[in-house]
Each structure stands twice: as C-alpha cells, then as structure tokens.
C-alpha cells in the first residue's frame, strides 16, 4: 500500500515536472489535410500523454485549409499532404512521413509494366482485356478503394481522375482486403500502400508490384521521393513556431512515433 502511494506521488511529480517545461493549460491547434489528420491525432494523443495539461486539437478540412489557417494564424500548425508550392514559400514545411501507393497485379500475370495512360484506360473501362496491354486474353478485374480513403485520393490526384470516372469491378476497404482480392483473382489489378504490398510480396503472397515510369515500387524509393505515386505528409508553420508547436513537430519527427506512422501505412523518413 505504501509502495503504491509512493509510486503514485512520484508519478505525479514526474508528470508535473515534464509539463512545467511548457506552459500548463496551453492548447495547440492543427488543421488541414484529412490524410494527415488521423496520423496527427494519434501523435497528438501520445504527445498529450507525455505532456499532461496540454491539449492538442486536430481538425480536418483539406490541405488548402491547412495552408490558409497556418498563414492567417487560425491554426498553430497546418497539415498538408503534398510538397509546398513555390508561392507558399512563406511557410516552413516539416515532413513527418511519406505516403506511397503501388499498383499490384497477380503474380501469374505476364504484364511487367503499365504506362500511366494504360492504367487510366484500364480504370476508366476503355481497356477491358489484358491482351490490349500486352497480357493474355482474359478480362481485367478493376479493384478500387472505397470513398474517403487517402490511397484513393492520391491515386485519383496522380492520374487526374474523378472517382465517378472509374469503372470498378470490386471496391475494397483496407489494404489487406485489396491484397486478398488481387491474390485470389489472376485477372485483377489494384493499388494499395506500398509498405503492405512489399511485405506481402516478400512473404509469398502471389502478387506483384508494378514499377511506375521505370521506378520500382519499393518503400526506399517512396522514402527518397523517387517513386511517382508518392507524396510528402507535412506539418507547416508560418515564421518561427511557438515553443509548444516546436516541441510537437520535434516529437512528430522523432523515432518515438514511427510505429504510429507505420500503423497508418505511411513511410517514416529515416529507416530503422
């Protein structure tokens, strides 16, 4: 009993000493990209646990809202799921992670590569048989993601498509379901987060990641920004960040949150 009380008191003391580094009761507001938001929310939860008394408020509204709010001071930190444009140089980006998706086909599919135009034709239903893109004479099963997923958003953005342009045969939720669907149907094509696909391919699941514009789909190429179907996930601030914002950004870029980044199927910047 006494030991428990002692632990409780020392626990409280440590907690208070940590939080006293940054003013008690402060609030940090993050707004912007709905892709970054779920990750930022997880990071914020862990940050709050380490710094009691601090509240981190995460709101979505798209990357442009992140830019706007950071500029106007409506948010301490903006969340932006792309690299900053030249006209946004008044803001400082801090890259937290990379997001990359790879096109996957069944392992038995002889097609070794597809151009962007071919992928667009397949997904819009203009091409419906593999023989038209150098494969065998078999129908193509187009696997698409459900609305609202960041992988869908990145895919649509890269190929300049609208979701209603896509003629899907199967719509899936998470990456695992996509991999199971493609590995169970030799005529199918889909896209999933590269990290998941690379892991499954290495562990014998009958799928193959296709290169894009000659760049192999690997986690390393996503990390380096070489892979075309990838993007930066940034936290942006205007001018010098406040001590609290600075502490949060440091934490978000540290190794302490790599497990959170990987849990969202994103790629941390430094390799383990």
């Amino acid at each position: 009993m006494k030991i428990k009380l002692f632990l409780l008191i020392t626990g409280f003391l440590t907690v208070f000493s940590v939080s006293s580094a940054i003013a008690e009761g402060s609030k940090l507001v993050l707004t912007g990209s709905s892709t970054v938001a779920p990750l930022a929310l997880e990071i914020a939860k862990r940050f709050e646990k380490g710094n009691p008394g601090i509240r981190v408020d995460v709101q979505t509204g798209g990357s442009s809202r992140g830019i706007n709010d950071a500029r106007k001071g409506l948010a301490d930190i903006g969340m932006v799921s792309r690299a900053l444009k030249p006209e946004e140089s008044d803001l400082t980006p801090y890259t937290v992670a990379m997001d990359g998706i790879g096109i996957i086909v069944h392992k038995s599919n002889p097609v070794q590569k597809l151009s962007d135009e071919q992928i667009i034709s397949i997904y819009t239903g203009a091409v419906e048989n593999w023989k038209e893109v150098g494969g065998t004479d078999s129908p193509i099963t187009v696997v698409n993601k459900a609305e609202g997923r960041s992988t869908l958003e990145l895919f649509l953005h890269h190929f300049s498509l609208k979701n209603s342009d896509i003629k899907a045969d199967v719509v899936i939720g998470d990456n695992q379901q996509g991999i199971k669907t493609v590995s169970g149907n030799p005529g199918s094509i889909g896209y999933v987060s590269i990290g998941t696909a690379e892991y499954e391919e290495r562990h014998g699941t009958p799928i193959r990641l296709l290169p894009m514009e000659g760049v192999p789909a690997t986690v390393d190429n996503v990390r380096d920004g070489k892979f075309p179907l990838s993007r930066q996930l940034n936290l942006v601030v205007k001018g010098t960040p406040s001590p609290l914002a600075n502490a949060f950004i440091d934490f978000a870029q540290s190794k302490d949150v790599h497990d959170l980044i990987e849990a969202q199927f994103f790629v941390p910047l430094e390799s383990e």
Partner: protein
Amino acid sequence: MILSKHSFLSRLKANRHGTDGIVSAFLSVLAGLSALLLFLVVLFLVRESWPVFSRGGWHMFLSGQDWYPLEGKFGLVPMVFASLAMMTGSVILAVPFGLAGAIFVRFYAPPVLARAYKIVMALLAGIPSVVFGLWGLTILVPMIAHIQPPGSSLLAAILILALMILPTVALTSLAALDAIPRNILDGAQALAMSRKGQILFVAIPAARAGIIGGILLAMARALGETMAVLMVAGNVVQNPDSLFAPVRALTANIALEMAYATDLHRASLFASGLFLTGVVFLLSWLAFQASERARYRSL
C-alpha cells in the same frame, strides 16, 4: 396466462420485503437499463443523422443511382436493393435446407445422427462472420471468378449468408417441431395417417408460427450481417441486375466509409444505419408476434 400472472403478482406483494422483492427490484433495474440502452442507441442514431433531415432531406437518397459522397451524390437506392436481394436470396436457399434438416432430425434420424446434426448446427452458428468472409474471399470468390469474373458478387454474398443463417432456421424449426404437444401427433397417428401425412398436414401446420418466427430472425440476421458481406460482395454501388454482379450492401457501405466520413457524408451513413435498425426492429417484432401466437396455440 392471466391467472398465472395474477398469482405471480400476489406472491410478489406477499414477499415485498423478502428475498423475492430484492431480486425482483434488482432484475427490473437491469432489464430497465438494457431497454434504456437500446433507446439511447436509437436516439444517438437520430441525432447523428439529423443533418440529413435538416439539410438534404430524404429525397437526396432517392434521387439517382450514384453514390459519390465527395462529389455530393448520395443515391442509396441501389444499396437498399442489394441488401434486400442478398436477404431474399439467402432465405430462399437456407429455408428448404434448414427445414428439411429439422424434419429429418425430429422424425427420421436415429438418435446418434440427430445429436450429431444438432452439434454441427450449433458449431456452424458459432463461427465468427469474419471467418465465413475469409473463407468466401479465398475459396468461394475465386471459384465463381472461374465461371464469370470478378467473382466477388451477389451470388457469393447469398451463398455465404445462406450458410450463416442456416443454423438459425434449422434450430428454431427444430425447437418449434419439438414443442408440438404429444397429443396432437398421437391423434394423427390414431387416425392412421401416413408419416408423410403427419408431417405435412399436422406437424408443420402446428409448428408454423415458430418456424416463421425463426425465418424472420434469420432474415434480420442476413440483413444486418456486415463483415462477411463486405469481404465477398464486391461493394460496387449498382443495382443487383445479375447474380454475378458485384453489389454493395447498406451495412458494408457503413463499415467501408464510416472511418473516413465527415459532415453530410457521415450523417448519411448514420441515416442508413437508422433505416437498417428500423427494418431489423420490424422483423424482430414480427418474429416475436409469430412466436407469441405459437405459444397460445400450444396452450
């Protein structure tokens, strides 16, 4: 019925301060809490889907066949049809098998076989739906894809659902057949009716209400099933115009998109949940009515 209720109440009164009173008070609080919880769930659904009623209105669900929430298109109708098609198809498949199994066990099977059948049905009822879904996705869907790609289809969903509701139909039918008063069957036998005649014209009519109640419960389960359907149905929002067409059920739609939905999109998912809850309530109420009727008949 009335008599027994009366004597129960009078016993309660006599024992108000005794153990019975305490237990009864305790139980009524627990029962009240579960009822309150159900009420709160419905209230929550109404509150979360309120933006739909105040801003968009029901007509936005009924206008058009397209479901692209990010582009402002909220056509729910194809998914309602898909859910109903899955439910109907699976019931059509499961009822003959379930009923036949129950009749076999009740009237024909040797005791060993009857026991084995009951155990198998109980096991089948206990398998988690995600396991059915995984089996469907890795075995059934590729088999259907051989006949006609993509394989993920209304047919796959119907087959999986039929397998899932089969134990519900079989076990409730069996219970209904078991509950037929002995004297009714003895009477049939005394009239020198054949076995077939006894089953078709005496046993099944006598157990009818219980069997129908079981079927309604199975329908509610088929309609509410999410995970297995999500994994095998293909989830493309379109009217179910062919058995091989991939379709999306209302439940699958909620599971697929809820985690990433905001604003009106989120509210419309809650509204479809409210609708589903309403239909399942209706089915359960009908099933309850049917089983009540069955009870009166046997008394």
